[in-house]
């Protein structure tokens, strides 16, 4: 079997930050910074292999064993509930999952609350825990527009600075959970490559202290 540790990184700015952490922790792979269109990069000496994937797909690559470890946002882990180990909170890509709505919004508990979101599972779990009856409208983007056009009462979405909400006369009503990037591992890979995966985890933990 392949003794390389396969690492799935999220494409984009967050992924670049994540790679920098790995590099500083001693898991460098210089070819990753070369200007080309390659998607897979190897450091044969360290026996590691990096690849870039869509951020929301990292958890799938890890859960299905195509990657041994990877970095995914807590939002993705809560939404898809992949069966993986969550080894570290990298403390980057910080934001929060929140309920937002019009500044004038007042919840009427006598009727079903309509919630527009990309994160149906997180929204359902949150309102279930509160015993609140809701109707979820699953959208794939531009969630903020839903309560403005009357499609929903509120939205459940990721909030970073809150600037977009403010510009659209919306505000955070409740914070559901803080979000940041997490180092995750496939449960089977962890059993067969535990020494290397634990070494990577420890060195990264030291690096982000």
């Amino acid at each position, binding site marked *: *079997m392949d003794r390389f540790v396969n690492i799935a990184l999220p494409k984009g700015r967050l992924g670049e930050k994540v790679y920098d952490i790995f590099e500083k922790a001693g898991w460098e792979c210089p070819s990753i910074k070369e200007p080309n269109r390659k998607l897979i990069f190897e450091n044969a000496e360290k026996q590691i292999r990096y690849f870039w994937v869509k951020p929301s797909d990292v958890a799938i690559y890890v*859960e*299905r*064993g*195509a990657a041994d470890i990877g970095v995914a946002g807590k939002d993705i882990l809560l939404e898809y509930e992949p*069966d*993986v*180990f*969550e*080894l*570290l*909170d990298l403390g980057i890509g910080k934001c929060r999952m929140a309920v937002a709505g019009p500044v004038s919004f007042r919840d009427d508990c006598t009727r079903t609350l309509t919630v527009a979101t990309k994160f149906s599972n997180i929204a359902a779990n949150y309102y279930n825990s509160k015993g609140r009856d809701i109707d979820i409208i699953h959208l794939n983007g531009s969630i903020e527009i839903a309560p403005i056009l009357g499609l929903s009462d509120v939205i459940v979405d990721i909030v970073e600075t809150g600037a977009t909400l403010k510009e659209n006369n919306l505000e955070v009503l409740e914070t559901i959970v803080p979000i940041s990037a997490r180092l995750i*591992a*496939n*449960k*089977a*890979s*962890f*059993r*067969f490559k*535990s020494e290397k995966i634990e070494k990577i985890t420890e060195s990264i933990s030291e690096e982000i202290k």
Partner: protein
Amino acid sequence: MINEYNLRDDEKIIFSLRSLYEKYGYEQYKMVKFEEYDLYVKNKEFLVSENIITFNDTCGKLLALKPDVTLSIIKNSEDDPQGIHKVYYNENVYRVSKSSKSYRELMQVGIECMGDVDGYCISETLSLAAMSLKTVSDSCVLSITDLDVLSYAAGLLTSDGETSAALLMLAGEKNLHGIAAKCESEGISKDKCALFSSLVSLHGRPGTVIGSLRQLVPDCPSLPLLESTAASLEEYEDIIDLDFSYTGDLKYYNGIVFKGYIDGVPTAVLSGGQYDKLMKKMGKKSKAIGFAVYLDELEKLFRAGKDYDVDTVLLYGESAQRKALTEKVKELSAQGSVLAVKRIPEKLRYRQLIEF
């Protein structure tokens, strides 16, 4: 005649496992494809998926295509707390796939040991789990957890059931930062949090792990049983990983729970444990332990391990004599699979090509 050439990889494994379980006195348990829906509704959380295929019987009774075998065996077996009842099964179950959200028919092989389940029964079941994994591949790991030790440790931190459940869930993810955050929000001391985190991080060969456990939770009442169980499994020490991150559902399981992994397969291929609590919930006084081998998960391994579609391609021309060709195919088929064709199918992988 059945020989190793005309059996698929999964069929070879099924035969080997059946033979193994029969050697240890397990009798085959045969069941019908459907059960009363009521059985599954009462124990929904025990099932991997809550979606069940249902239909009405001719007399109007609501039936279900079985999504699980264990519940049927418990329901239909005699409750004999002083005796021992050992069965194995080789059955199809019908479940919803997490990824495709559609129903799949899955083959499961497994054993159940019910009655006066003592330390020996637990050791024998774990040995059979180890042997089952080795039947598939020598590169395997049997990951064992003691839920009683985990629950005891969680109990040292909190008496609140909800907090304890949250800590055990985080233990299942090896989520140490989550455990630290939960402890802080619940006002649990740093020392206690560190103890629980150390336990959750703990994994390795039983000999090493037991020593660390003695220091971490010296007063845990279930430790001696775990020690004697681990000692009885010395023969399989090289594939056993005592790990305190895996948590089964505490409403149904107790004591020893385990999962088996095969190198090259990304998910557990074997899962089992003691389920005395489920027995009690179903009105039985007997104790029980068992496991299932998920053959569908092994498909990934068979796919990766197959280098050829056929051993021999026998290429013949228009002028080939039919009788001689038939005899040649028969001769070659005694050594492996053979495909006699006039033109080689595109992308076919074969070990050897013989022109006739």
